């Protein structure tokens, strides 16, 4: 099927099977490889992108549901300048292997959109769907708090 949607601020038209998943459309067709495959079952969050501003697991979002929606991926998050979450991630030296981090960052950025100053509990409950095998959780919490401060100052 052909469908149109907005990807990182630009209108695009794609041709894909209706049951094809957004993750593979992004990666295989559009070559936006920042969004990662890890479980394909909405269990790990490595494939997290924003759909109309909400964090979703792109591995289970069918292309047929995208019509006229807005998709934001890690490639579209920074706008010339790094997003405060990305700055905080560097400041706190969060990533280890890095494979989960696009998903972590997209999930965190969505939190700070709706909650400028989240508590530790709010951070944990919002971030709970995104696994980090390297165990960078300790720094993820700190970095979200740092990002919240950076946003305040900006």
């Amino acid at each position: 099927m052909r469908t149109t949607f907005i990807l990182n601020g630009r209108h695009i038209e794609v041709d894909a099977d209706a049951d094809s998943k957004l993750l593979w459309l992004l990666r295989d067709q559009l070559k936006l490889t920042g969004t990662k495959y890890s479980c394909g079952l909405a269990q790990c969050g490595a494939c997290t992108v924003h759909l109309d501003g909400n964090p979703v697991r792109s591995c289970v979002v069918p292309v047929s549901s995208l019509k006229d929606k807005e998709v934001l991926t890690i490639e579209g998050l920074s706008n010339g300048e790094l997003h405060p979450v990305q700055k905080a991630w560097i400041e706190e030296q969060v990533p280890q292997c890095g494979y989960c981090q696009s998903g972590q960052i997209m999930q965190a950025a969505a939190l700070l959109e709706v909650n400028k100053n989240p508590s530790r509990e709010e951070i944990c409950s919002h971030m709970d769907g995104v696994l980090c095998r390297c165990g960078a959780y300790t720094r993820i919490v700190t970095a979200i708090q740092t990002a919240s401060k950076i946003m305040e100052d900006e």
Partner: protein
Amino acid sequence: MNNPNSNSRISRRSFLGRAAGFTFILATGVVVPNIGDKNNDQKKGKELSIWVHLAPDGRVRIYNPSAEMGQGSMTACAVLIAEEMNVDWKDVIIESSPVDPENYGLQWGGQLGGPMMTVGSRTVRGYFNALREAGARANYVLRYSASRIWGVPTGRVSTEMSKAIHSDSGKTITFGELSGKIALPTNLDNIKVPLKDNEDFTLIGKDIPRYDIPGKVTGEAQYAMDIFLPEMLYGVMQRAPVNKGRPVLNNKEEVLKGHGVVDVLVMDYGVGVVADSTETALKAKARLDISWSDAESSDYDSILAYQEYERLAKSDQKGRSISSKGNVLRAFETATEAMVCEYKNDFAYHAQMEPLNAVISVSPDGKRAEAWVGSQSPDNARRTIANVLGIDFYDVNYHVCYLGGGFGRRSMSDYVEEATILANHIRKPLKFIWTREDDVGYGAFRPISLQRMEAAIGGNGNIMGWKHIIAGTGGGLLASGAEISYYDIPTQLIEVRSIDHGVRTKHWRSVGHGPNKFAIESFLDEIAYAQKEDPYLLRRKLMHKSPRELAVLDKVAEMADWGNNSSNGRAKGIAFAERSGALTAAVGEISLDSSTGRIKVHRFWVVMDAGLVVQPNNAIAQLEGGINFGLSNVLHESITFKSGQVQQSNFHDYRLLRISEAPESIECFIMPSAEEPAGVGEASTPIVGGAIANAFLKLTGKPLRHMPFTAEKVKEVLDQSM
């Protein structure tokens, strides 16, 4: 990362003179070219050595021989060279070295020229002297070159921040300016270059931000999974549900008719599918109708197997001796009391977030190949490709990629071999991926084991004899971490007895240390509990001849305020472990929801003595990550086999720790030390089992003896009457 591998033959010929692990290139121009990018201009500048390239603009490329899988050694290796070379860190660019073990590999003793393996936390400690020496030699060449230009003795030229300085006149020249004027002393191989004293370090021991992190926050960092080639096809494979089962494919024609399917290949232990996209390949895979033969492990049941391991551990069958000290038999005969406990641990899966994959392109005549792989053993991976194709190692143009986690799994090349077979079959560029289900179902796991611990207690309450029998499936992997030389126990017998059940096992972050330290540290606490002794004081007493270990233990007790018991239904547990030369002690604080059996971990305190630490902030990240990794394993992770088949398939039934379950704080302290560096990447993982079990014993008076401590199992323990 750039990948200077296809012309390795040419570059190898250009390396002349080899001494002290340092090879100079006398040829000018491109010696280690960037072949990965065909459009890339030939590099201008000068190879100062196989480790360093100096460009006219002053940029210094440093070649990293290790696999970067999150542990940060790519930065640490470059720091070692840059430190001795006196390069301004701003000027440093880090690239992967060629996969050329003769020059860039590492022997276990720390000399160059061994396998290129990033395993066992060995990179920094292994390369420490060789890379510093490489940096110092490059520095010498720069000073010598400046001295020729100025006509002054080399001894009067010093360097700092990417500049050479003539001490007498104050004249300076930048390294970039020197790049076109490099002069090599004829007797270079014999010149002794001094290394810096520790107090002169400007990079080692300081917090240099990790080089790989910026690319990992923008999504630009490239894993093999992210490589796309023109006309690339996609491959997947259905593997035997029971290890070594052989396939008979019943519907090849039908699968071949599927939309987008290019080819189907029946292989030794599976069936490969090639298609025009990942999704079409996966759909075709789901349609395969395969009959599998039985195999050796067809009747293996890992839960039932514990009975067999227990019988073996109790028997007098001799296994492989790990340690034998004094007359243990006599110690038990004369003991006033003997204690026996058995500890168990299930198989564990690596669960690296990037499933295994490789991109391989075989030339139409089958005589050359190009490959993109994330591997902990890149030379083995490259050799595997060459062997499958029957071609020379150097006819494989090999590109090193970031690893989305390794933890031991990526030191095997099984996925590379499969990818090559399939790529050779189609002779087109192929991206070959394992799904998460493949990665779990055909995993190579940390061994299952049962550990029978016995202690002979003398009249004075001291432990006089120690028996530790490890029975399980995993051969030599069961052994590491069983030795306890730092505990002064006069008689000891430690032994491994393994039964091969035909299932796949492999090193897993800290290998046998996880299960063995869990058993040792839990047993010590059970002894202390029975003797009504404080478990920290018991360890202090046992460590009286090991001052370095004792200092680490004391420090963690102080940080965790050990003397003051936790309140609010919490309790603390202490444990100690040594791994890859690092000495680490930890205290964990937990509480318990006794209605569900759920353990909540609140805090951890960790102290490590790893000698001189090159990247302290990164070492702390490794300690934190290692605690969370350990907790994940200790609280949740279990692979079980029934009829030889793995019972788990993805993250819904192989649970990993989530952020809400991570401790609120992990306070780390690194002991200041000038000793040789030890390995950091696995140091904290094996302590967690003991620390949690010991906190639980303190809290409830009941021991936890079977990892993982799932809520279900904890509930069972709580419901048992003592």
